[in-house]
């Protein structure tokens, strides 16, 4: 990998406030790299420390009241800018690193002509004479699309002039601080286009500072998201937009008004992050975003989450949800069902069915693990065994540290408050002889949460939360539609305020339109209640919308497990590839090669020797090893695990 052009480490820029009453920690431990030739977007609301960061790089912070704390480190082209003598520093400023500012009106000196101002930098830095400097200025103006500088200039033209000024010395790094914020949309597009073009032509790196993720999306290669003086998330642009990990990024993304909004995401209302960036003199304790965070829980106020590498791979360093310890941990889960016996227990020997055969995974708090497989692969058994609705034969299951398998009787029933299940069949999962009110009030009564009028009130609240009118409380299940029943099932699961939900194919029995509604409801509830999901499905497409991580099961074993982005983009197990290719695409023009699996799923009572998938495997390299040696689940990419001898050569 190439050396970074700019390396910022643990940058802390503090200001002493006017009355000396406190210290504003405007930039508080920021680290990032800028590589040659790339565009790095720095995003955040105003007051997050973006501009102070860029000013600190050029040491343009007025001192006092500001100062860069010792321990900070800014390296540019191998030199620490923070220890550079003023003279050397000036040689960098405007020459190797140029900057354009937000306000083109105020950044230009009205006393001098534009040409003069542009030429000045060339004269100062590169020792050019007046004439060559002037020629160079005109050349730059032409480059930025102003062939004939006249005296009156529009905002867009002034910004171009600023760019011309910044570029005259062919800098290696251009810091553009909100370069388009004050401009019309059309001019903004022109300027962004211009920056892009110039960057390509001149091969420089650009640090694009903006509060607008839309601007970043089109121009930046990587994005750093800042909040309250810190970096909260950092990722390649595509990945950041596809899967924001930090709730703040998620909020920013949801706030952008867009033309192509998917109905499933926004449904008519524009999202906004509640509250404002707090004052830099008093950042909140713990995670600085927690007072505004929809996912916040006790721990967020207590501990500051470190910036962690997510499983997503690439160079992404991300914070927040990923940093929390797993809420649910499953290790070596085994469930066998005794096979059939002959009359009087005689006859041929029992053949045990290994419904679940050594399944392990973990789900971090607030995350969703999608568990996918064909019917009969044991995925529902996994879900029910975790909840002890079926007793496991071996393995460990912990929920927030509590050993689910070891508990019995009363303790287990108390633990059930924290974990709940939503079933596939909305017809079978509600007691036909109980009204909705009775169904929803029962868990409240069992756990002594509410009785009488209080229970009625709680039930009405639950119904409202799942999008049903309170009048439904008096209805019997057979009076409800499938979607409505499923909402009641969800409300029942929520009634005890659980942390963890097993969603056992919650939408596969529903119409497509109702499916979308219920999926959205589940996503909303997860956000609102900070729920952790195990989402069981037979369809990779459904899971894609909700899962952070996906595990694919075949014959009682997990054959592939990966972050959702990785799995859908680059499946490593041939079974996953086949499942993905089997998902119908609602577009007649879409060209796709569909892999049709041969044969049926073998009986779990007599799984094939070697790799259980080998009889149906479409992989061209399949050989004798597959028939004899069962492949182990092993890491094949960061965060991605596959059980295939040829995981390195995916189909």
């Amino acid at each position, binding site marked *: 990998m190439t050396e970074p052009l700019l390396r910022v480490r643990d940058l802390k820029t503090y200001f002493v406030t006017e009355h000396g009453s406190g210290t504003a920690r405007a930039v508080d431990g920021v680290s990032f790299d800028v590589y040659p030739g790339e565009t790095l977007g720095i995003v955040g609301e105003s007051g997050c420390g973006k501009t102070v960061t860029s000013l600190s790089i050029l040491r343009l912070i007025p001192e006092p009241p500001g100062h860069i704390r010792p321990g900070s480190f800014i390296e540019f082209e191998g030199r620490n800018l923070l220890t550079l003598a003023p003279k050397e520093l000036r040689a960098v400023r405007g020459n190797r690193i140029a900057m354009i500012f937000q306000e083109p009106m105020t950044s230009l000196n009205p006393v001098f002509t534009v040409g003069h101002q542009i030429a000045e930098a060339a004269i100062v830095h590169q020792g050019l004479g007046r004439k060559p400097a002037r020629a160079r200025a005109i050349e730059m103006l032409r480059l930025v699309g102003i062939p004939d500088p006249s005296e009156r200039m529009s905002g867009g033209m002034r910004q171009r002039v600023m760019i011309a000024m910044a570029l005259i010395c062919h800098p290696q790094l251009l810091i553009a601080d909100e370069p388009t914020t004050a401009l019309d949309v059309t001019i903004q597009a022109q300027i962004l286009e211009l920056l892009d073009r110039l960057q390509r032509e001149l091969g420089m790196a650009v640090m694009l500072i903006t509060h607008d993720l839309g601007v970043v999306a089109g121009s930046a290669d990587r994005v750093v998201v800042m909040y309250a003086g810190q970096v909260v998330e950092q990722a390649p642009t595509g990945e950041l937009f596809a899967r924001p990990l930090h709730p703040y990024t998620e909020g920013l993304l949801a706030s952008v008004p867009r033309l192509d909004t998917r109905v499933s995401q926004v449904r008519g209302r524009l999202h906004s992050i509640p509250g404002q960036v707090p004052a830099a003199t008093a950042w909140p304790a713990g995670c600085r975003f927690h007072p505004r965070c929809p996912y916040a829980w006790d721990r967020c106020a207590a501990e500051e989450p470190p910036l962690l590498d997510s499983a997503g791979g690439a160079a992404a360093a991300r914070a927040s949800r990923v940093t929390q310890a797993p809420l649910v941990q499953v290790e070596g889960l085994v469930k066998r069902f005794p096979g059939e016996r002959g009359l009087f227990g005689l006859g041929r020997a029992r053949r045990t069915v290994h419904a679940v055969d050594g399944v392990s995974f973990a789900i971090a708090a607030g995350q969703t693990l999608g568990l996918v497989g064909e019917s009969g692969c044991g995925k529902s058994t996994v879900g029910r065994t975790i*909840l002890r609705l079926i007793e496991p034969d071996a393995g460990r299951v912990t929920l927030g540290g509590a050993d689910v398998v070891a508990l019995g009787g009363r303790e287990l029933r108390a633990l*059930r408050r924290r974990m709940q*299940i939503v079933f*596939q069949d909305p017809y079978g*999962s509600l007691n*036909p002889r*109980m009204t909705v009110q009775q169904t929803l009030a029962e868990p409240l009564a069992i756990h002594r949460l509410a009785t009488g009028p209080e229970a009625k009130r709680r039930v009405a609240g639950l119904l409202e939360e799942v999008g049903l009118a309170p009048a439904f409380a008096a209805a019997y299940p057979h009076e409800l539609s499938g979607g409505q029943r499923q909402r009641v099932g969800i409300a029942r*699961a929520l009634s*005890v305020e659980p942390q963890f939900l097993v969603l056992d194919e919650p939408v596969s029995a529903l119409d497509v339109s109702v499916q979308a509604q219920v999926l959205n409801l589940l996503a909303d509830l997860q956000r609102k209640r900070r729920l952790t999901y195990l989402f069981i499905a037979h369809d990779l497409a459904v899971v894609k919308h909700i899962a952070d991580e996906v595990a694919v099961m075949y014959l009682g074993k997990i054959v592939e497990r990966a972050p959702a982005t990785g799995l859908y983009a680059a499946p490593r197990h041939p079974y996953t590839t086949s499942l993905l290719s089997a998902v119908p695409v609602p577009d007649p023009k879409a060209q796709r090669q569909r892999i049709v699996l041969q044969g049926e799923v073998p009986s779990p009572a007599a799984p094939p020797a070697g790799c259980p998938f080998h009889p149906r495997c479409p992989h061209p390299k399949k050989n004798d090893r597959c028939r004899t040696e069962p492949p182990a689940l092993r890491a094949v990419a960061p965060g991605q695990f596959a059980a295939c001898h040829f995981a390195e050569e995916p189909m």
Partner: protein
Amino acid sequence: MTVWTWLAFAAAVAVALLAAAEVRRHAVTQAAGRRFLRHPTATAGVFILAFFVTTALVAPYDPAGQIDPVHLQNQPPSTRFPLGTDVYSRDVWSRVVYGARLSLGIGTLAMLVAVTVGAGVGAAAGYFRGGIDAVLMRGVDVGLAMPRMFVLLMAVALWERLPLPVLVLLIGLTGWFGTSRLVRAEVLGLREREFVAAARAVGAGPTRLIFRHVLPNAAAPIIVSAALGIGNVILLEAGLSYLGLGVPSPLPSWGSIIYDGQPYIATAPWTAGFPGLAIALVVLALNAVGDGLRDALDPRKEAT
């Protein structure tokens, strides 16, 4: 007195008609009710049962009252005595009507005992399965293998004169085996249903699961078997009483009325014939209603 006899009779018919009409009116509005009405005999059954229940409540004479032991022995049916009199000049109509009270009462109570025990044992066996199931069901096998009549005869022989509550208990406690099998089978299916798993998932214990979630959904077959079972119990009680071992004379259960009348079956056939007819009618009616209920409450037909 004649007036009262006929008034009571008319009232009973009127009430029975009303009850049958009311059942019809109500039933038509529901799918289950319509399935009930598909049996033409079911409505007739409702009428007969309502008639006997009403007469049992409004009977005019003292069933043990000997009106004129000298002149009114074994009188044939007339307007004064619609069903004649017996050898002690007692009004057979009154005795049959009171007999309904006793026979239906014993039948219902004994069946309640049987259903309670049967449902409890069946639910426990079906819900807990394993060892509990094996022990309970082997017990049931033994119970089913014993001839019920002889068990009762033995008990009666031991007690000599059997108090009525004990008789009811005995009949009930020897009659639950079939019900428990039925309930067990039903519970075995129900316990695997998702709503039971859902209740377990929210933390419900076995008691709540069985009584709130499983048994209410097994109610239909239990009710049907109870309705059919009452007829059986009535027959059984009649048989015991006919043998002189059930309801002691002079209490008029239908069986004991027949027992009292049988020596005169040639000269006064009405004394034994009418209670016999009453037994036949009520058992037929119960079977008809039971069949209707079976179809009406069959959950497999719920969808249609």
